[in-house]
C-alpha cells in the first residue's frame, strides 16, 4: 500500500471511529454538571451538618455570612455597569476580609461564556445572568431558596418570581435561582428643552397624546425618537414594541410567553395592533433613518447630545443622561391606551446568580442581602444605578437630587405597580439575536410587516423551545 493510500485509510478510520464511537452509546460523556440543581447550603454550619443535596433549614441564630477569614470572591459581571463595582468596593471597606477577583465582559460575550464558566473549574461566586433558565435546567446554578428563607427575601416588596423556575422549566414560580441587584424601570426619556419646543408641558396621559407629540416633533423638523437597532447591540425597537403591546393588551400573556408557559404565543390580536402601531411610527419617520446601524452607546450619546425629543430606555442610563444634559432630561412611564388606565413597563432587577459549585456561596448571599439593606449600598444603587434599590419594606428611600431624572424614574415605579413585565428579549437565550433583532430590522427596511414579524418570532421561539 503506498503512503497516500495509507493516509486515506488512517483518516477514514479516524472518522469512522469518531462517528461510530459514541453513536451506539448515546448519552455520551456528560462532562460536568449533574442535571439536578444544587441546593444552597444555608450556613457554613448547616452545610457541614447535612449533605448538599438535601434542602436545609437555616438556623435562626446564625445567618449566612462572610466569616472573618480572608475570602476572595470570584465575580463575573457585565461591562459598563459601574454600580456593582462600586458596591463591591464599599463591601470590602465594610468587610475587609473580603476581596474581589472581578472579570467583566460585554453582554453578548457574557451570555456565550456563562455555561462554560459555571461548569468550569473555578465557577463564579457571583455572576450576572441575563437569562438563567437553560443554566438552571443544566444544574449549573445554585438553588437560593434557603438563603431567601434565611434572610427573609420572600417578604420583600420586590417580587422574586422573575428568578424562579419550576420543575418543568417554566419561570415565574418554583425554585429561586437568582436575585436582583436593584429594581430597574423602563419608559420614555425626553429632552426637556426640545419637549418645550413642541409644546409639551407635562407627560402625555394617553397613547393618543403621545402620538400627537411625536407628530408635532416631526413637523418641527426634530427627530421624534432616538433609538438603536444595530445587530451588534440588539434591536432597541423591542422597547417601544413591548410598551405598545402592554398598551393594547394585558401584561400577563406577555410574561407567560417570556416565562415559556405551555401554549403561550406572542402572535396575539392585541400584539398585532401594537406591532402595527410601531410600523406606523416607522413609516411616519419617527425614528432615525440609520437606526439599523446605530448601536446602543451611539444612541445614548446622540440623545445626550440633543438629537431626539424622546428615547425608550431604562433607568440604568440615568447617570449617563444626567451627565450629558444636566437638568434637561425627564422621564415618564409609557402612557396607557386610554386615560386613567394602569401604565405598564418592563421592569425587573438586574439578575445575578451563584454557580452550583461556588466556593463562597454564603458570602455571595450575604452580599445580596447587604445590597438591599445597607444604607450606603442603597445610596450607591440609586446614585449610580439610578434604580429603586429594593430591599425590605419600610426602609427609607435614599436621597435624590431635586430635579434629576432619577427623581422621575423613582416616582414611576409605584405607578406601574404590579403591571410590570420582563423583557421580551429574555424569553430564550437567542430569541433576541435570532428573532426580534433581524425581524425588526426587516420591518425598518420595509421587508417585513407587523403580522409577519410576530409570526416569524413565534416560529423562532417554538424552534428554540423544541431544542
Amino acid at each position, binding site marked *: *500500500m*503506498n503512503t497516500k493510500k495509507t493516509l486515506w485509510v488512517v483518516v477514514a478510520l*479516524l*472518522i469512522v471511529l*469518531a*462517528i461510530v*464511537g*459514541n*453513536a451506539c452509546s*448515546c*448519552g*455520551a*460523556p*456528560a*462532562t*460536568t*454538571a449533574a*442535571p439536578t440543581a444544587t441546593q444552597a447550603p444555608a450556613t457554613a454550619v448547616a452545610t457541614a451538618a447535612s449533605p448538599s443535596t438535601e434542602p436545609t433549614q437555616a438556623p435562626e441564630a446564625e445567618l449566612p455570612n462572610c466569616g472573618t477569614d480572608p475570602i476572595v470572591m470570584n465575580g463575573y459581571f457585565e461591562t459598563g455597569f459601574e454600580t456593582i463595582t462600586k458596591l463591591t468596593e464599599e463591601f470590602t471597606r465594610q468587610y475587609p476580609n473580603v476581596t474581589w477577583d472581578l472579570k467583566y465582559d460585554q453582554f*453578548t460575550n457574557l*451570555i*456565550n*461564556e456563562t*455555561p*462554560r464558566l459555571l*461548569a468550569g473549574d473555578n465557577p463564579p461566586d457571583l455572576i450576572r445572568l441575563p437569562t438563567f433558565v*437553560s443554566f438552571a435546567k*443544566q444544574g*449549573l446554578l445554585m438553588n437560593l431558596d434557603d438563603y431567601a428563607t434565611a434572610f427573609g427575601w420572600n417578604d420583600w416588596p420586590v417580587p422574586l418570581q422573575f428568578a424562579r423556575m419550576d420543575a418543568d422549566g417554566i419561570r415565574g414560580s418554583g425554585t429561586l435561582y437568582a436575585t436582583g441587584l436593584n429594581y430597574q424601570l423602563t419608559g420614555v426619556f425626553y429632552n426637556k428643552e426640545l419637549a418645550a419646543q413642541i409644546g409639551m408641558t407635562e407627560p402625555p396621559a394617553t397613547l393618543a397624546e403621545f402620538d400627537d407629540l411625536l407628530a408635532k416633533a416631526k413637523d418641527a423638523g426634530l427627530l421624534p425618537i432616538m433609538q438603536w*437597532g*444595530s*445587530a*451588534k447591540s440588539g434591536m432597541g425597537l423591542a422597547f417601544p414594541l413591548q410598551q405598545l403591546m402592554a398598551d393594547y393588551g394585558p401584561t400577563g400573556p406577555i410574561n407567560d410567553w417570556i416565562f415559556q408557559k405551555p401554549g403561550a404565543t406572542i402572535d396575539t390580536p392585541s400584539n398585532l395592533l401594537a406591532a402595527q402601531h410601531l410600523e406606523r411610527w416607522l413609516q411616519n419617520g419617527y425614528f*432615525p*433613518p*440609520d*437606526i*439599523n*446601524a*446605530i448601536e446602543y452607546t*451611539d444612541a445614548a450619546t446622540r440623545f445626550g447630545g440633543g438629537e431626539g425629543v424622546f428615547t425608550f430606555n431604562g433607568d440604568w442610563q440615568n447617570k449617563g443622561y444626567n451627565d450629558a444634559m444636566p437638568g434637561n432630561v425627564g422621564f415618564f412611564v409609557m402612557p396607557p391606551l386610554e386615560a386613567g388606565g394602569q401604565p405598564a413597563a418592563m421592569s425587573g432587577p438586574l439578575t445575578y446568580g451563584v454557580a452550583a459549585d461556588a466556593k463562597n456561596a454564603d458570602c455571595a448571599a450575604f452580599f445580596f442581602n447587604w445590597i438591599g439593606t445597607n444604607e450606603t449600598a442603597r445610596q450607591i444603587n440609586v446614585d449610580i444605578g439610578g434604580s429603586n434599590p429594593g430591599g425590605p419594606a419600610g426602609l427609607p428611600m435614599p436621597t435624590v437630587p431635586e430635579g434629576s431624572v432619577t427623581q422621575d424614574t423613582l416616582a414611576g415605579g409605584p405607578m406601574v405597580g404590579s403591571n410590570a413585565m420582563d423583557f421580551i428579549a429574555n424569553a430564550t*437565550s*437567542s430569541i433576541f*439575536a*435570532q428573532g426580534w*433583532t*433581524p*425581524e425588526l*430590522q*426587516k420591518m*425598518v*427596511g420595509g*421587508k*417585513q410587516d407587523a403580522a409577519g414579524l410576530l409570526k416569524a418570532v413565534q416560529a423562532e421561539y417554538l*424552534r*428554540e423551545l423544541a*431544542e
Partner: protein
Amino acid sequence: MPVPPRSYGENHKMTSDNRPVATALSRRTFLRRMFRRETILGWLFVMPALAMYAVFVLVPAVLSLRYSFFRWNGIGDMRWVGLQNYLTVLEVPDLLGTIFNAFRLVIFFSFIPVSLGLVVASIIHRVATGKFGSISRTVIFLPQVIPLVAAGIIWCWLLALPGLVNQILRSIGLGAYAIAWLGDFDWALPAVGLIGIWVMLGFCCVVLLTAIANVDPSLYESARIDGASWFAEFFNITIPMLRHEIGVLLTVTVIAALAAFDIIYVSTAGGPGNSTSVPGVQIYILAFTEQRIGLASALSVMLMVLVLIVVIPIQRLSREEAS
C-alpha cells in the same frame, strides 16, 4: 503434480515462477529506510509541529464531524440524531442563506482584490521604482498589519450616517446618496465587502509584486523594444507568468471569504435582518449563544466541504496552467 497458483487477488501481478511481484518496496527495504537515521531525525523535527497540528486542527476537525451527528448543548448528555442537523441547515432559510452570502462575499474578498492587485502591482512595477515604489508597497500593505477587529470598528465609524464617507459625499454635492451603509439592506454586504477589499488588496499586491520582480526582465525589455503598450505587457507577460501566484491568492482569499467572521461580526454582526450573515457568524451564534453544538458543527462541516469544493479546482487549474 503441479502446484495450483496461489490467489493474491485479481489485480495482483505474479512473477513467471508464480510468486507475487513485490509492491513498491520490499518489506526489508521499507523497514531499513524507516529506521534510517535521517528518517528518524526528520520525524523528530516534524513532530512538534505535527503534534500541534494534530491537537489544534485534526482532532477538533474530527470532533466537529462527530458532534454534527448529535444533539448537544456543550455540557450535558449527547443524543445521536444522525443526519438531522444537516437537514436542518438545508431546511432553515436563514442558515442556508448564510452560504449564499458567503459566495457573494467571494466577489469582494477574492476576485476584486486579486484583479485590482494585479493592476496595481503591474503599475507599481512599471512606473514606481526606487523610494516611491517602497512607499507605495508599504502604504498598500499597511491594512494587513492592522488587527481586523480594529479595522472593522474604524470602518463602522467611516460608513455610519454621520461618518466620513457621507461627509465627503455631502461636501461634493452628493448628500442625497448619503445613507447608513452598514444598516442598509442593499448596501450592507457591498460595504462589508469594501472592508474586505481594503484588507486583501495589500496582501495580493505584495505577493504579486514579488512575483513580478522574479519574472525575467528581458521579457519586459524585449516587449518594450517591440513597442508594447502597458496593456500588451499586462495581458501577454504579467498575467501568464503569474498564474501560479494568482492561483495561490485566489485560494487564500476564497477561503477568507467563505470562512469570514471577524470583519462581519465587528461591523454588522450579520445584520440588517441577516443580510450580511455568513456561516462563520451563524456557527458562532449557534454554538455559543444557542448552545446548539451539533447544528453548529454540521454547518462547520458543510462549510469545510464547500471550501474544498471551491478551492480544489482552483488549485488544480493553477497548477496545470503553471506547468
